[in-house]
């Protein structure tokens, strides 16, 4: 067992675990059941399987741990992963999650239920999703929302597919380089085999935003990130109107937490460009900031909202309100003719299981925060990042990289390799941000910073002082 860690070996014993965790059968019951079946023994139940396919017990697998043993092992591992003062954002954000959120959604009734196909026995999940859809549609300023996609990056890919299906004429999609590089990579994987051409748009090195392109062939959709990957605010109105004027769809890629204060995609554009309908057509993004823990990256969820005209292009599940036999309101999965279990090869997507429990958490989260809570959290993130950026850029060797407006995240440039500085900060228990130099070498020693509402003044000071220390050492050396 070369892949077993030393710890694992210590935790197991060589003794055979002859009992059956989670299986309730007693020997007497097994005998009675076999008799009803008319089978001599359990092995007989596998007698239709070609004998040469049946394998022996797998010696390489460890013996069972009881709950006490696995508890100790996982506690050790969780403690080992420790507690860090985190300033990384870049698509995943540390926010306070009210204790009520996960206490409620891990109730067995939500946690251990299946997809609500039997509507009458699933009104809890269904009504909750209907409430979720309402919240997300309103937050993004669009008409309808589905019941979630896997995550923000894959949701963007589905939005691209949706837009291309809706456009019919072109399969070109424009994605600015100010969209997260990982999102761009994901889109490419997912749309790769459907003949879609992804064109990347350059950014202005001064503002870190996407200029309105001068000239473009016909294209199906433009993706507009807001705030963009650098935390810079794009000219969403100009870009929206430009794309609409060319008959393309606009896909807004947004951090939903920031929509407490930033203009919702449904209201982008509409500046006196006569004859052009304003507002993004589709909005998508990562739902994690609304109640999902960081958890090394998942489970999070992707949200997807759109205009009513696009609803039949929507992938994934939709819940609708209807009436029961007595005329009372009730909820059910609807418009299923879009989905794989009905439409099979012609479905809008192959998605089946989604991120149900995470949107349940998100719904409770949004209910607890309400419009004012969302507004305050977004503003606090902005204020904290602004304060941190100001403090850090007051240090010698640190400067703000972009002009223009940033929100919630910002980029600073250092006088030495970012990796080396981050290493130093880790000695002080600080995760100092996201190193941009791998994905954007042209930006030099660029560091993406994020200080959410979870950071206190003392935290910001600690970061600043530690960075000052690290940079000064380098300077004297």
């Amino acid at each position, binding site marked *: 067992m070369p892949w077993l860690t030393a710890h694992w070996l210590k935790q197991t014993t060589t003794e055979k675990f002859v009992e059956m965790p989670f299986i309730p059968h007693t020997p007497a019951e097994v005998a009675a059941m076999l008799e009803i079946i008319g089978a001599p023994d359990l092995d007989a139940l596998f007698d239709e399987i070609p004998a040469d396919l049946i394998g022996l017990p797998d010696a390489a697998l460890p013996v069972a741990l009881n709950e006490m043993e*696995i508890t100790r092992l996982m*506690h050790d591992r969780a403690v080992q992963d420790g507690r860090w003062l985190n300033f990384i954002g870049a*698509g995943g954000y540390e926010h306070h999650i009210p204790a009520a959120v996960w206490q409620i959604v891990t109730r067995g009734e939500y946690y*251990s239920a299946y997809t609500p196909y039997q*509507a009458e026995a699933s009104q809890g999940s269904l009504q909750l999703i209907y409430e979720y859809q309402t919240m997300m549609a309103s937050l993004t300023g669009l008409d309808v929302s589905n019941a979630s996609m896997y995550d923000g990056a894959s949701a963007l890919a589905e939005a691209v597919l949706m837009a291309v299906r809706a456009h019919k004429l072109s399969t070109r999609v424009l994605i600015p380089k100010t969209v997260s590089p990982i999102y761009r990579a994901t889109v490419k994987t997912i749309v790769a085999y459907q003949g879609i051409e992804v064109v990347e748009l350059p950014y202005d090195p001064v503002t870190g935003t996407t200029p309105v392109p001068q000239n473009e062939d016909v294209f199906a959709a433009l993706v507009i990130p807001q705030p963009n990957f650098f935390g810079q605010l794009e000219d969403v109105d100009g870009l929206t109107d430009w794309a609409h004027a060319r008959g393309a769809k606009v896909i807004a890629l947004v951090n939903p937490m920031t929509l407490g204060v930033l203009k919702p995609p449904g209201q982008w554009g509409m500046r006196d460009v006569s004859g052009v309908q304003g507002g993004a057509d589709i909005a998508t993004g990562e739902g994690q900031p609304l109640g999902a823990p960081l958890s*090394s*990256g998942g489970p999070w969820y992707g949200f997807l909202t759109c205009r009513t005209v696009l609803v039949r292009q929507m992938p994934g599940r939709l819940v609708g309100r209807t009436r029961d036999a007595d005329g009372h309101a009730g909820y059910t999965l*609807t418009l299923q003719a879009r989905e794989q279990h009905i439409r099979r090869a012609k479905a809008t997507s192959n998605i089946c*299981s989604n991120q149900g429990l995470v949107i349940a958490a998100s719904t409770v989260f949004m209910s607890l925060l309400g419009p004012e809570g969302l507004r305050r959290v977004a503003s606090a993130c902005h204020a904290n990042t602004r304060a941190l950026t100001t403090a850090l850029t007051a240090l010698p060797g640190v400067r703000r990289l972009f002009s223009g407006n940033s929100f919630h995240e910002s980029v600073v440039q250092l006088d030495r390799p970012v990796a080396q500085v981050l290493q130093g900060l880790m000695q002080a228990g600080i995760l100092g941000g996201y190193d941009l130099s791998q994905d954007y070498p042209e930006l030099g020693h660029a560091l993406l910073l994020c200080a959410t509402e979870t950071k206190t003044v003392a935290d910001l000071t600690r970061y600043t002082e530690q960075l000052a220390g690290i940079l000064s050492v380098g300077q004297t050396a």
Partner: protein
Amino acid sequence: MKLIFEHSVAGRRAVAQMPRRLDSLDDLPEHLLRRDEPLLPQASELDVVRHYTQLSQRNFSIDTHFYPLGSCTMKYNPRACNSLAMLPGFLDRHPFAPAVTGQGYLTSLYELQQILIEVTGMAAVSLAPMAGAQGEFAGVAMIRAWHDSRGDTARTEIIVPDAAHGTNPATAAMCGYTVREIPTDAQGNVDLDALKKVVGPQTAGLMLTNPSTLGVFEQQIQAIASIVHHAGGLLYYDGANLNAILGWVKPGDMGFDVIHINLHKTFATPHGGGGPGSGPVAVSERLVPFLPLPRVGGESGHYRMLDERDCPRSIGRLSGNHGNGGVLLRAYIYARMLGGEGLRRVARYATLNANYLMARLQQTGFDLAFPKRRASHEFIITLKRLKDQTGISAMDFAKRLLDYGFHAPTTYFPMLVPECLLIEPTETESKATLDAFVDAMIAIAQEAQAQPELVKTAPHTLPVRRLDDVRAAREPDLVWSVGRECAVR
């Protein structure tokens, strides 16, 4: 029940849940800011807790009901998996935090990879796919990448049996393939002649579930594999039904080249009312370079995520991070609590329960779809005879089961069996529960004869009566807005 929005009162706030004040946004230009207020509830913490606690009680779930939903493997989700996966050390870690800060997490995932490799008999695995369907996507994309890498670009078709789950054809289409459907024979096996007819140089591969969604083991699997391989195609295994053979038959041994595993089925992670799932994809040697990213590599104490630099031929990334980490932890914990023997017992007792339930139902007069076959971990009964006699449909029957306190089996899938119920008890249910279910089935069958209206208008004891699906689709009401209150129970 009222909607949460109907509890909303302008100006009400759950103050403990928000920063003390509204920080200034003066530095931002007006035209980028929001002017209207989003329609989120303005509620107190008690409003919210009470609403969602009450709402939860309107669900059936494993923790409250027997849930024999075929093809879904609704087994007990151990509570320890939940609490241990939600330890603060795991919850608080940022996906971009350096690997050195996540050795506890990465070690668990690495070991999970190894466990999955062992039980599937494949060469390598990627945990990245976030559900079965995404695993399928990754698998078929790898098939395509493999053919492409060999310059074999004329392969444009994926073969799928008619009993396949909808995700199979949908996935093939997403990967740019044309779907060729092949029929099932009377015993529930793939029609070999039909297969031979459609296979050819245009065949990229075949997707198969084994045991199939008909609840039987495909006995000619080795022949099928050799036909497809012979034609130059690859074999995809839809692992949704792995629970039936876990530890006994390895998909790798059956000749499959690529496989996904629904951890939310076989590995007991919760379905969460729709998700999150997890659909790791495993491959034979020749497909290893194409596995989706990231994957966990390295060695004990120095595990890390492998990326494009490590695996330049990968089909790429399927999501922003590394799959559904919290689900993966739950699956890992489950696997460790079962151990090698325990994993093997899963299939044994899932099969026992299915065959017992099948025998009992048959003995009490229900019609089996495949009466000559063993059940795998699930089986199908058809109510066609009852329907013809009484007009009671499988759907009516299913709804009436809810009144008896049982979640209904899967209805009308697979589509080729008329008026079917696909029944999967799973290994974690006891004989007493199965017997009680049989009692309910008998009682409803009697009601169908004696009081058919009672069954046709079921359910009668749930929070709502039968819902009008047609109305839902015809007049879609997908979001609420102020003034749209309506009669509620």
